[in-house]
């Protein structure tokens, strides 16, 4: 999923739901009654795949792209050291080698990671890909004029904190070693068991130094993948990709690359995209979207149309929408008040406000309900699907509010994004029965995002959400609950401002674990431990429904992106 985010750091978290949902949005293969016409026939090469999107691919420089797992369209052009497994569902959350022979060899307590390149790798011009090209690609992503990528490399690599890229003084990064053309070694400042996941991002794509044109590079980046850029019009609003003659399926076991041409058209309204996909006239029959969901009203229409329902896929992406508390604001400093709200919450109303059970799954855990995140089912404040006013009143009495209380819930004016008035009123209605009167404070989306992420202005009680950059518990929990990640002079995501030494230490300990399954278990346990403090009340994990054209087949949707993977799609 390529997230064309322009917002700061980290998925631009909350503010980027749009982007996230967009990226995540997704669709899926499986389910829903199986095959439309001719879907069982073996997929063939050839044809043109049309991609109808809302957001233009306005960044196409691998240094500037902020992606999860290398993105969707970008991943057709840029190969990276590792990539996401192109498989349906949970299998798709695995990280697999791409340019490299394996997902990396850790040493010295996961602070040193070594990769070797496969044989026979070439750029679109036929020249060989070397580890020097990968090192150069990473270095240029530090240049201020090519900013926009995920911030992790600057935090993780030794000596990268104030590195300004190779352009200014020609300095290189000593923490990336290339002992020979096939070997690359990364030296990290701290143990990071998730390094192979980071190596899926486009900053790990090779860039030949001789062809680098700085900020102009994105007009025609040198391809290492199955397609190369033929046309890039209006800043990525219309992107045409054609086959890269020098890409060989023999060196790439992930990308299928069936269509000859990929035509990406952006700037479309979501209703238009879904309407065009459902009508499927002309080129739209072989069309997909990588950033648009079916909305609730569209879902209601699909219900009555079997042929259409067969063309709807379901996708999951690690995301949680939750009620956030700022315990520095009264009365939320009192855990009993937070618990009362957790007990009173009517998740059925919330789920319906979010588009119904097909688009949202009620959540009691912060971590998404997928094994790869370390999902451990728990409900610290069990109150059933519709909430328990009695338990809530009990907690309120213990908190010293036997006659109920009035609180303010801050939300965005933006409807349909998971932080909007629809959800706020659903929460409000649910808490009414417990004697909690909720006053709503609506802020326009920009102001809302800034207000809730600034330590000084953070409200006591607000709607929020979080999605991770890769399917692991670390990027899900650490930014929100690690006390050392409280940012007092910028965007802060640790909204509870939790700085608990035992939590911080556990995060450090888990980061040292290089066995993903083992780490996942520990993240799950940590999630439960934090959940019991009621610093957040999870509302729901979104589900994505996406429509695809009637001639489209070989549909693969991973739980990593929740998005139909266009490297797998065939139109013949």
């Amino acid at each position, binding site marked *: 999923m390529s997230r064309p985010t322009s917002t700061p750091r980290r998925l631009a978290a909350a503010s980027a739901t749009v982007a996230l949902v967009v990226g995540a949005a997704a669709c899926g293969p499986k389910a829903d009654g199986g095959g439309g016409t001719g879907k069982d026939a073996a997929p063939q090469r050839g044809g043109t795949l049309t991609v109808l999107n809302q957001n233009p691919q306005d960044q196409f420089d691998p240094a500037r792209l902020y992606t999860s797992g290398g993105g969707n369209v970008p991943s057709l052009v840029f190969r990276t050291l590792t990539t996401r497994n192109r498989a349906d569902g949970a299998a798709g959350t695995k990280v697999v080698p791409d340019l490299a022979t394996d997902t990396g060899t850790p040493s010295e307590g996961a602070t040193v990671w070594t990769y070797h390149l496969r044989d026979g790798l070439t750029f679109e011009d036929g020249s060989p890909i070397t580890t020097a090209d990968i090192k150069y690609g990473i270095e240029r992503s530090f240049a201020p004029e090519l900013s926009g990528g995920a911030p992790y490399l600057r935090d993780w690599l030794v000596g990268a904190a104030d590195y300004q890229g190779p352009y200014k003084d020609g300095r290189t990064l000593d923490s990336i070693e290339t002992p020979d053309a096939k070997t690359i070694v990364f030296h990290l400042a701290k143990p990071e068991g998730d390094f192979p996941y980071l190596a899926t991002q486009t900053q790990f794509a090779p860039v030949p130094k001789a062809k680098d044109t700085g900020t102009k590079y994105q007009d025609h980046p040198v391809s290492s993948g199955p397609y190369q850029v033929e046309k890039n019009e209006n800043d990525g609003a219309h992107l045409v990709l054609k086959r890269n003659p020098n890409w060989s399926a023999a060196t790439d076991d992930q990308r299928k690359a069936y269509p000859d041409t990929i035509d990406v058209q952006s700037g479309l309204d979501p209703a238009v995209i879904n309407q065009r996909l459902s009508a499927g006239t002309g080129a739209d029959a072989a069309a997909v979207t990588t950033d648009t969901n079916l909305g*609730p009203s569209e879902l209601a229409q699909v219900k009555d149309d079997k042929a259409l329902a067969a063309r709807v896929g379901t996708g999951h992406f690690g995301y949680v929408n939750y009620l956030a508390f700022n315990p520095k604001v009264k009365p939320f400093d009192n855990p009993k008040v937070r618990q009362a709200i957790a007990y009173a919450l009517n998740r059925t*109303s919330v789920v319906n406000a979010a588009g119904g059970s*097909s688009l949202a799954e009620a959540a009691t855990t912060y971590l998404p309900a997928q094994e790869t995140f370390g999902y451990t089912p728990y409900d610290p404040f069990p109150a059933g699907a519709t909430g328990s006013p009695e338990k809530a009143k009990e907690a309120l009495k213990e908190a010293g509010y036997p006659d109920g209380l009035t609180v303010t819930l801050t939300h965005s004016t933006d*409807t349909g994004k998971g932080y909007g008035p629809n959800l706020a009123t659903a929460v409000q*209605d649910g808490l009414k029965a417990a004697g909690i009167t909720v006053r*709503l404070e*609506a802020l326009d989306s920009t102001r809302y995002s800034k207000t809730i992420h600034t330590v000084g202005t953070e409200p006591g009680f607000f709607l929020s959400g979080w999605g991770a950059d890769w399917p692991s518990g670390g990027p899900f929990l650490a930014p929100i609950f690690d006390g050392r990640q409280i940012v007092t002079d910028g965007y802060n995501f640790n909204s509870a401002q939790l700085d608990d030494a035992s939590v911080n230490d556990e995060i450090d300990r888990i980061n040292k674990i290089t066995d993903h399954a083992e780490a996942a278990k520990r993240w799950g346990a940590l999630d439960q431990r934090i959940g019991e403090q009621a610093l957040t009340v999870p509302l729901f994990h979104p589900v994505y429904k996406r429509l695809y054209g009637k001639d489209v087949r070989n549909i693969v949707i991973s739980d990593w992106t929740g998005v139909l993977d266009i490297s797998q799609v065939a139109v013949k």
Partner: protein
Amino acid sequence: MAPRETRAGEARAAAPAAGGRQVWRRLLARRTVRAAGLVVVLLVLTAAAAPLLTAVEGQDPTSYHNDLLDSAAGGVPTGSFGGVSAEHWLGVEPGTGRDVFARLVHGARISLLVAVGATLVQVAIGVLLGLAAGLGSRLLDQLIGNTTEVMLALPSLVFAISLMAVVPTDFSRPLLLTLVIGLLGWAGTSRLVRAQTLSLKQLDHVAAARLAGATRWRIARRELLPALAAPVLTYAAVLLPTNVVSEAGLSFLGVGVKPPTSSWGQMLSGATTWFRADPMYVLLPSALLFATVLAFTVLGDAVRTELDPRAASRLRVGTTGGPGGPGTTGEAAA
């Protein structure tokens, strides 16, 4: 109006009343007007009795009914016509299950209150400033004139949206809507009143009052206001439906009333994506809004025709009704 001691005052006081009755009779003689009037009366009654009506139905406008929704199908109401049933006369809202009838009748209160309130604000400011400009010094006239121009040139929708956004959320939203629409829409009235004042000023009885030493305030009150009533009323009748639409528009854009309060505009805004899946939900607020605006417009039109300056000149007392009527130029009456 103030107590009338003078002879002229008595004459004037009697005349508009007689004229009013005459106008009233002529208005009622028209079938369209009677129909429009009926709609307006019904609306006002509905709005006034909203809590009573919803109590009769046994619902309230904010309670959620999750059991009436098909959650897997996006939260569309189960049952036909948007979930119409004996309990929910006009169905329920998709995604929440809130009662549509209750939300519509409560929404009518907001729509009508805000529209009437905003019209009053517009007329009050417009008349005051128009009189001041017409009677005051040249400098004051210039100042008010320029301000009026600015107000007319202002992109009022954009301005209204930003005003609605910056005011703290604690402030009563219906009142804020009234003020914002009112404060941004007085320019037309002000111009009209100024023009009328300038021509009325030339009339004999006004000149006589001035010569007799009446203050400006007294002239405005005694000599001008009664004569201004007709054109201002006409103009207000046109403003009212515009204000209904403005309120709906602002609520539609998400800067109007705060949820869970309902208004027609806010309902329409939520309904836009549902026009295929749940047409009832879109049609009901649209139809009501349409009927309201149409009814007010028909009434306004009729009032204008009846109180047309030319017709009005026949009714107005204190002048003999010169050939051009007082609405045209000073010379006509001189």
